[in-house]
């Protein structure tokens, strides 16, 4: 009960959070209604394509939130957060791959198509268990968490900080990309995992399934936000910010800095993994490209554009930048990289606190002006 009280208190204190929840609640209801109940001819009808697109954005927002937790609050700029997202995605993809069963091109009930194609005769050991949904869910949490634990434990204990850390996280995701491109790894190589049929028995192509996935993404984002808000409002959050601002000092007043960083990193990695797991059934494919360092860096831009260290900013940034990306890559494909690059430069030079920071600043000014 006290836990629920804490949550209610959290929401009561968090004005921005209330807006966010209302917005998420609204779209979680409105989107399925507009998609399923409004007839197709109507101008208010949302196509399933748009539902999926929005669902994708929400997964990105959850991923951005995860990065904001470590970067905005912990000061750990991970240039490899895509690795956790992709691993979560692969875990979900493996489950859906097993669900295909004998409906694949080769009709092999035991092996996914690409393994048949590679002339493999039995399932590699690390694919066992993925025919159970519960096992896949466990792995979605465990694998990114475990990787974050091992990597973080090594890095934080040796006090690898700042740009060094950023560069080795980039190397980490790069190494994973190279590895997953190999056919011998048993994750579908270049093509990755795709041609999924259904999840928990529900057909993926079906509009209803798409809407459920969308609503789940919205709920996950809300839950993720709440968790992050709880963390940053707790003393843990204050310690983490203290570490960001004066790491040595925090040590000298008796905090085991590496444990704090490690747990923050793990929580963030698990969130990223969940985002990836929700993302894959909606887009229908996961391939090694998700590990590419560029993806992870793009993620950093979302957070930077929105405003780091605000949680809300990460979500706003992810939605805005991805909306812009969809628009540009459709309308003016050659401009997109200019725009993305320009965003990096403009945000770092002129908007160090991002759009949310800009809004807060002008609001403070306005309030101060009114008070005077």
């Amino acid at each position, binding site marked *: 009960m006290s836990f629920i009280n804490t949550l209610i208190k959290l929401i009561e204190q968090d004005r921005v959070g209330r807006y966010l929840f209302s917005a998420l609640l609204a779209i979680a209801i409105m989107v399925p209604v507009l998609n399923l109940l409004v007839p197709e001819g109507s101008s208010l009808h949302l196509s399933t394509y748009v539902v999926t697109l929005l669902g994708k954005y929400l997964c990105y927002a959850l991923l951005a939130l995860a990065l904001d937790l470590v970067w905005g609050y912990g000061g750990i700029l991970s240039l490899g957060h895509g690795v956790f997202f992709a691993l979560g995605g692969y875990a979900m993809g493996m489950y859906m791959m097993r669900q295909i069963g004998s409906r694949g091109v080769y009709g092999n009930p035991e092996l996914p198509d690409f393994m048949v194609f590679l002339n493999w005769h039995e399932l590699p050991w690390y694919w066992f268990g993925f025919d159970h949904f519960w096992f896949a869910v466990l792995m979605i949490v465990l694998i990114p968490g475990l990787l974050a634990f091992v990597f973080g434990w090594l*890095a934080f204990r040796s006090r690898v900080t700042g740009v060094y850390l*950023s*560069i080795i996280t980039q190397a980490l995701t790069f190494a994973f990309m190279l590895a997953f491109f190999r056919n011998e790894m048993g994750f579908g190589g270049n093509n990755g995992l795709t041609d999924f049929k259904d999840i928990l028995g529900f057909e993926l192509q079906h509009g209803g399934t798409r809407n459920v996935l969308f609503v789940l993404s919205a709920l996950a984002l809300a839950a993720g936000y709440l968790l992050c808000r709880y963390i940053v409002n707790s003393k843990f959050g204050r310690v983490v910010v203290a570490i960001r601002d004066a790491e040595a000092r925090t040590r000298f007043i008796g905090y085991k800095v590496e444990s704090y960083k490690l747990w923050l990193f793990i929580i963030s990695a698990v969130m990223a993994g969940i985002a990836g797991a929700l993302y894959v059934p909606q887009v229908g494919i996961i391939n090694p490209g998700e590990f590419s360092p560029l993806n992870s860096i793009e993620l950093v*831009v979302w957070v930077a554009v929105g405003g780091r260290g605000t949680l809300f900013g990460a979500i706003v940034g992810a939605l805005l930048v991805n909306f812009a990306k969809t628009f540009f890559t459709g309308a003016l494909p050659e401009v997109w990289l*200019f725009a993305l*690059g*320009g965003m*990096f*430069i403009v945000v*770092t030079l002129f908007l160090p606190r991002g759009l949310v920071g800009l809004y807060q600043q002008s609001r403070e000014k306005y309030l101060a002006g009114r008070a005077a």
Partner: protein
Amino acid sequence: MCTLNRSGRYHTSGFFSPILTLLIMIASLLSGPAYAAQAVDNFSAPLKQLLEFDFDIKQQAIEQLAKSDDERVDRIFKTLLNGDLYYRKEDQALVYVFSTDDGYALTGVLDNASLGVVSKREIKKITVNNQLRELLSGLIAERGMSNRNPAVRLNSVKEMIGQVGEPDRDRLQKLLVSETDQRVSRALHIALAMLDVVHGDKQKQLAAVVALGESDYTESRNRLQQVLKQATAADDSALAKQVKTSLHAIQLRAERYQALETVFFGISLGSVLLLAAIGLAITFGVMGVINMAHGELMMIGAYTTYVVQLLMPNYIEWSLLVAVPAAFIVAGLFGVAIERGVIRFLYGRPLETLLATFGISLVLQQLVRSIFSPLNRSVQTPAWMSGSWEINAVLSLTYNRLYIIVFSLLVFAALLAILKKTPLGLQVRAVSQNRTMARAMGIRTEWVDAMTFGLGSGIAGVAGVALSQLTNVGPNLGQSYIIDSFMVVVFGGVGNLWGTLVGAMSLGVANKFLEPWAGAVLAKIFILIFIILFIQKRPRGLFPQKGRAAEN
């Protein structure tokens, strides 16, 4: 293309010979037309006879041609032997034929002039029979072995070693007497040993086995293995023992050469890494600026090479010499612009610099895509960069790798000299150690920053010139090197140029030693994992900066 590869390969004995070849080529380029016109008459009659259907007439023509010591005859013979010599139906001119995507590209046999692309129907092959083939291969060998150039002689003897037969013995012995070049006479000895080991008496056989054991030709090894089989069958234990010893010696040497070659590959990869990382070592190490656009500055260098070659299409041989300073200036100017435009607002905020320069890298990539197209551009390799230096039958080092090793070391030395000996270097070191103090001493820190960054960027551009000779020049060129370069700098220790050198070389060599048993991709992954672990143990790299200054 096949023909070109076979005959266009340089079998030269000295390191500087490519430059010699270059000079000869330029000379022949200048005197080409006159030379060709005069030679037509000596050739035209027997060449015409080659078109005849009758093999006897062809034989006469070949024998006639063999009397000439014109170098073009060798190519005609070789092409004819391979059944690749054609004539054009409309004017019965002899042509060399290269198959291309559009059809068959022709070049004249006499003047080597390009005659355009035609379809298969317009040309006809000149056929040869076995008798002619035998004649041709004998003539080719003979012409080769009596050539004035020892390198050509050596090559001919080498080609002979595999197929030497008892009838060749006299000729070989005659040549051996008159041979002055040590390498050629050694090869002749091996060729004779190949005969002795089969046909000689006991004593000669044993001596031949010893001699073959000291050579590295695949053929001599094969021959020894045959002999071993025969000796075992004949229960000749003394011979068998000697053969085994020889084979073992060959094996040992082969392994040693293999290792040597791997080291060479490793060092050449290391020098590419060094070139890529050294500019970064300045911007990252000396200035503390994380320049994610470094790879794109290399890309700019590579594209500069491409543009230079577009501007001087007739002087490809010289293009690289022009491209190096050009790339340095172009990339350097870009660097100065980046520093003045963006980075100077972000000093002391490394993470922000990282993001902003990454943005710049995206913009530069897209810029190149818009200007040059997203496809890879082909940058030509000058003739003196191709070919290889054959140290012996097992070990040969390609010139482009050799040049890049030398080049990267030169760049490294130049950079070291700039930092140690010039006023700019002094100021750079002063600013990197204590900015405020340097400013108080009257150093224009802003100017020094711009120059340092320009220097680092210029070196990236120069690295791009080298890369244009090794990989595809495309918009993604920079991205594929940036992570590696950072690994090198971090591994070697930030702020230490020697660390960068050692780091680059050791990572290069390690990578090449891992490759044979792990594969290229896994090797790279291992290296990445190794560095990630290494950073844990030594967060400041191999050669860290020590003391109070390093604490903050």
